[in-house]
């Protein structure tokens, strides 16, 4: 079973306690009522879906209940790091990918 480090519980917990919650660091436009349909579509529907390192929201739904962010490699399924909501997107070059 995959173990995921919850930054609020401050330890690794089994994946069964977690739920995936989509791509991270997507800012809702502040003028959302004014933007064009194309811009809204890009914000609302279009996701990066990369092969390799991706940044995602996860929720420790059967644990502390908190949302947090994670950097995960979609090829190896390895969690590179997790961090609390509000913390900046980490620099990819500084993440240990081993």
């Amino acid at each position: 079973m995959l173990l995921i480090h919850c930054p609020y519980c401050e330890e690794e917990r089994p994946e069964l306690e977690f739920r995936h919650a989509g791509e991270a660091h997507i800012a809702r436009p502040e003028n959302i009522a004014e933007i064009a349909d194309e811009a809204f579509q890009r914000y609302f529907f279009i996701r990066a879906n990369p092969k390799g390192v991706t940044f995602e929201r996860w929720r420790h739904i059967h644990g502390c209940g908190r949302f947090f962010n994670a950097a995960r490699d979609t090829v190896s399924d390895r969690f590179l790091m997790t961090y609390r909501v509000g913390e900046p997107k980490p620099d990819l070059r500084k993440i240990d990918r081993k």
Partner: protein
Amino acid sequence: MAEIARRMSALEGRAYEGPGIALTPDPPASRLSLRAPEASLSALSKALGLTLPDKPKTAAADGSRAALWLGPDEWLVIDEECADLAALCASVSALHSAVDISHRNTAILVTGERAEDVLGAGCPQDLSPTRFPVGAASRTVFGKAEIVLWRIGEEAFRIECWRSFSDYVFSLLEKAAREA
């Protein structure tokens, strides 16, 4: 003639005892789902007569009352003598949410030298004493049901689960217990 309704617990009459394991439904208790920011904790602790724990996976217990850390701003408060916990918090003016969930949950005591193994049949957490010591408490899963697990002794755990899940949780525990 008027009929009198009798209140029955969700696990009325259920119990299991086998070599090294006992499963016992716990008598009714009062329970509170408490949400509060850090600034309110001292006032709430005073009202409840119990210091709300602020470390993950911990609990504070005093007499019949206990507070289990569930999340950074969330606690499960249990009183085995059925004290009105929500009323105790009502006098606190500091920001908080206190919801009485006494009848939502029911408790099962899992005791005996095989307690850890039997729980391991459905709970994916590492329950060895180094990772889940006496006094540790955590929301987690047991099979397909969400539970709150609290280690009350070296060989004793208390499971808190929703009463609608309790039949499933008890049956799965019993199945694991029978597989010696």
